[in-house]
């Protein structure tokens, strides 16, 4: 491992890669602050840039920097405006915004940055420990296990979708898988479902899909409901941000919170489908429950602990979500799914072989995560008062630019104007789905995993001349059973909870 860290250090500390981290963090913070543009949209916009870099290490470092920056930017708008740009920072606004209202915006930002830094750093250390171990196990996997593992991943994403959302999430996953079958696959030399259109021959570009699923609906929502972006007018966006320091007592109060939440957040992040949003809410809830009576009353009114908990947890979870991506090549969240797409476009196949074949990429990413956190703390934090000026850009200018960048992101990758029509069409579809409360991340993950899922399935079928691989490989069977259980469990538990509730009502 030490050897790996050295390789990573030498790769990450090249001038080019350091520049990439700094640039990525700054761009990410800048755009992440804007209402409605979450890390997924930003990474999708940045992918063409990353791909033209050509060097996968630099590209991945840039994108990871953008990811961290975006989360940090999201926290900033949560604290200053009570307008979280990202679902993962909603819990940050619970205590961050009240603090800003009390005139402690600067302190809140510092605490957020320090907790993010600590969460990300501890997460990166845990990643450096667990990823190689998991890689070793994963090297024993064959296509049958990969197939089963992807099924587990997809069903976990549905299972964690929340009460009443499991079937909807599954539906979206299947829609994503269906969209992935369009075009000429690598496995069969024939076009499928292209409806005779040349432009569909190579399939739907995942950047176009990512833009259409995330960036475009948000922009349309901003147009539809001005209240979504108007909160900037009354908030402290233009106000002065002063007093970045926090006291020694406050530091002592948040220290155990950071310790607990970085570990908890990391492991939640590792689970497919869970990720930063669940980690931050859970982190907040746990800390509130174990806080003493007096501190508990403070939660929601500007408690430093309540701010530190979700901030630590979401950053640790972001780092944790890299574990399945780097070791198994299976993304657990929408963001890592986009990163996976970018990696494939750069001719890098993430998975257990990555650590063996291209250790410099693997370790450089881990090291650069650490550097990224450091950059956020020492470079971005002092710049926040200036970066926050972007929130003052009038909506009339902001929205056309967001739409324009969405269009450019889809166009640059393909150099094909038909792609833009596809983008608008899919964007309208995504907006309607969002209105009906369908989760869209499963769709994108299904789309990205679709080809791999089919390839691994076909390979195992060919190897065993049929479905026998399910029975003959115990690992595969176990994973598939787990996948079924994951989908059924939430339904079963909800039913039992309802039964119990009814029973109590009857008993009265």
């Amino acid at each position, binding site marked *: 491992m030490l050897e790996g860290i050295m390789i990573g250090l030498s790769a990450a500390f090249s001038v080019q890669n350091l520049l990439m981290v700094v640039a990525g963090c700054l761009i990410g913070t800048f755009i992440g602050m804007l209402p409605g543009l979450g890390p997924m949209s930003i990474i999708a916009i940045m992918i063409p840039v990353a791909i033209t870099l050509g060097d996968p290490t630099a590209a991945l470092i840039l994108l990871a920097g953008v990811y961290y920056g975006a989360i940090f930017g999201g926290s900033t708008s949560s604290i200053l405006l009570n307008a979280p740009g990202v679902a993962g920072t909603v819990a940050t606004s619970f205590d961050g915004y009240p603090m800003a209202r009390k005139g402690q915006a600067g302190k809140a930002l510092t605490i957020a940055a320090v907790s993010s830094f600590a969460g990300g750093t501890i997460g990166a250390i845990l990643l450096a420990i667990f990823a190689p171990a998991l890689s070793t196990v994963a090297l024993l996997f064959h296509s049958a296990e990969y197939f089963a593992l992807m099924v587990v991943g997809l069903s976990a994403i549905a299972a964690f979708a929340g009460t*009443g959302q499991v079937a909807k999430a599954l*539906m979206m996953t299947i829609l994503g898988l269906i969209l992935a079958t369009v075009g000429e696959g690598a496995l069969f030399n024939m076009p499928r479902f292209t409806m005779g259109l040349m432009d569909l021959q190579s399939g739907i570009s995942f950047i176009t899909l990512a833009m259409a699923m995330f960036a475009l609906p948000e922009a349309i929502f901003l147009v*539809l409901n001005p209240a979504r972006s108007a909160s900037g007018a009354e908030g402290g966006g233009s106000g002065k941000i002063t007093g970045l320091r926090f006291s020694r007592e406050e530091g002592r109060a948040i220290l155990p919170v950071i310790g607990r939440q970085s570990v908890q957040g990391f492991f939640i992040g590792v689970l497919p489908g869970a990720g930063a949003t669940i980690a931050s809410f859970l982190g907040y809830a746990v800390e509130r429950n174990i806080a003493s009576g007096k501190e508990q009353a403070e939660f929601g009114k500007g408690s430093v602990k309540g701010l530190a908990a979700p901030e630590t947890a979401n950053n640790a979870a972001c780092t944790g979500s890299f574990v399945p991506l780097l070791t198994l090549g299976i993304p657990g969240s929408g963001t890592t799914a986009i990163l996976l797409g970018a990696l494939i476009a750069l001719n890098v196949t993430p998975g257990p072989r990555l650590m063996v074949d291209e250790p410099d990429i693997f370790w450089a990413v881990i090291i650069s995560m650490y550097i990224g956190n450091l950059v956020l703390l020492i470079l971005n934090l002092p710049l926040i008062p200036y970066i926050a000026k972007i929130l003052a850009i009038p909506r009339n200018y902001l929205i056309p630019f967001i739409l324009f960048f969405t269009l450019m992101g889809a166009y*640059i990758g393909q150099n094909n104007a038909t792609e833009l029509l596809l983008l608008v069409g899919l964007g309208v579809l995504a907006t309607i789905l969002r*209105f009906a409360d369908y989760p869209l991340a499963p769709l994108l993950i299904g789309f990205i995993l679709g080809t791999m899922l089919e390839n691994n399935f076909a390979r195992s079928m060919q190897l065993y001349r049929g479905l026998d691989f399910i029975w003959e490989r115990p690992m595969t069977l176990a994973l598939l059973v787990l996948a079924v259980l994951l989908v059924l469990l939430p339904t079963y538990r909800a039913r039992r909870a309802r039964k119990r509730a009814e029973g109590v009502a009857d008993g009265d």
Partner: protein
Amino acid sequence: MALDRWIALIFIAFCCIYGYAAFFTMDQLLPPFMQRNPVWPSTFPKVLSVLGILVGLIVLFGLEKSAEQSEPSATDINYRRLHEYNLVQALSLLGLMVVYALALRPAGFLLATMVFLAGGSAILGERRWLTMLLVAAIASGAVWYLVQEVLGIFLRPLPFFLR
């Protein structure tokens, strides 16, 4: 019927068409040597269409009980309040995007982008024409320079009659 169930219904119909294509139209084209494979190009789509219909039915009939709906906040988006929203603006912007897609090649990047950015602001109610055009012109020039010169991706800058 709520919107999400309508969507489930449409999804089921879509899966039926997709399944029809997979079950009845794909296999005839298959060359004989590929028919000996256990997996055909149509295998995965067949499985997907069946699964899709099943899950679609679950959503359609509401077999899974949904969570209690909390009161939506002002910043939430809700289709039942669609009429209160700026629907015309949103649709015009989408139209503008389509026009941009169609005009990008013939009109060239610079002109198309300028019109798009300025037009977008105008649709959203901006009336300071000079600022608007200036911002749009600088932005399209800067983006073109970045994409063409820094990233090295070719973007046709000028309209067809100036080429």
